[in-house]
């Protein structure tokens, strides 16, 4: 079944760890959690593919873990707090993971953070059409329709809401 489309899928470069991903990624996250124990870290490092067989993983998930494709792991239901344990098992700093996920080098990523981080400008929305926030300005009105048409549409929907309510 294709993933159900969500409003937050409009946020660029972001895999929200929601109920659907949590369900699909249970095996990835349980594998990562197992790495909290030293004996498991050793067993995994000794034979990665063999170790992974004890978890419920799809071939794509297994491949993402073996390739250390951190974005793909997130896409397939891994959560960053869990996948970070795999990074730690490899002896990698979080900055290494961040560089891999952002397609950057560790030096460039660190320099970006020191310079104030990645700006929200241009990074809020894939479609570019979203409502301005409660706290800070920005964003375009969702509807590009003429005012009158937009008004009638909203009147209709509030009527529908009343009906449902």
């Amino acid at each position, binding site marked *: 079944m294709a993933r159900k489309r969500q409003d937050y899928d409009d946020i660029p470069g972001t895999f929200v*760890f929601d109920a659907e991903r949590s369900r699909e990624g249970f095996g990835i996250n349980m594998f990562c959690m197992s790495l909290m124990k030293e004996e498991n870290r050793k067993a995994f490092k000794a034979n990665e593919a063999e170790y992974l067989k004890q978890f419920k993983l799809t071939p794509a998930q297994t491949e993402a873990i073996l390739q250390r494709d951190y974005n793909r792991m997130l896409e397939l239901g891994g959560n960053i707090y869990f996948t970070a344990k795999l990074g730690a098992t490899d002896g990698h700093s979080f900055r290494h993971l961040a560089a891999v996920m952002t397609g950057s080098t560790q030096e460039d990523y660190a320099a970006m953070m020191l310079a104030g981080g990645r700006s929200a400008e241009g990074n809020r929305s894939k479609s570019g059409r979203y409502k301005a926030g409660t706290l800070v300005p920005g964003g375009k009105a969702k509807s590009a329709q003429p005012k009158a048409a937009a008004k009638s549409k909203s009147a209709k929907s509030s009527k529908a809401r009343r009906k449902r309510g």
Partner: protein
Amino acid sequence: MARIIAGVASSHVPAIGAAIDNKQTEEPYWKRVFSGFEKSKDWMAKTKPDVAIVVYNDHASAFSVEVVPTFALGCASEFPPADEGWGPRPVPVVKGHPELASHIAQSVILDEFDLTICNKMEVDHGLTVPMNLLFGSPKEWPCPVIPLAVNVVLYPPPTAHRCYMLGKAIRKAVDSYPDDLRVVIFGTGGMSHQISGPRAGLINSKFDKAFLDNLSKDPKKLTRISHLEFMREAGAEGIEMVMWLIMRGALDDKVDEVYRFYTVPASNTAVGHIILENRRKAAGKLKRAAAHRKTDIRRGQ
């Protein structure tokens, strides 16, 4: 009678804990962060709370993906530091306050907030880093702590409004506890940050500063921030800021802001910190306020 005297909000970046544990606090990068908490430690040393309620989130330490409670209250008599993959942090065991904790549990559940009760729980950097920032690194923590773990890892976390209302219910519970205890409540996590995916590294100082301004003066405005807005503006993990609203809900509507600090970055995160004090009231006024809150909570206002 117990009362909440102040609220503290602070980021809980794991790298801050690592810098403390590895004695790097004097290095220029970290000094910029730690210097912002010097005045806060003085404030805390003078304030000397009898109990601290610490609202925080677990990061795949005590809770895996097997059990994900939305609100989990620590009612145990102690909470050992969790092994987060590098051995437990070298910080003292956190002592609980089981009597007040179970009183709060009973009160807020009857106020329709369905808490999970944890009688055995380990605590990770989400709780111990803010304690270090406010209490320093003593051999024993100076007061008992009631941990309140909030799920902000599995989407959706509780809404900003729900968190604010839980804060009000906690306030009512504390107000009805018979012993004279002075309580400080912590909201931790945030501010803007994203540590996952190609957009990792996102920081939004404009959002953070507006959040701090409103936290102080107009918290109800913050209760209208949707999860989509938090993630879009403050990063996927910036959604942690809903936890600050539990702290804020537990304070008076009007508070005195006594201190604020903001710096970018600490590793991947914008560090925000604020101290808000309740204004002192006569005992009679307090009782009347408590009676008002009883009705407010039910109405959801």
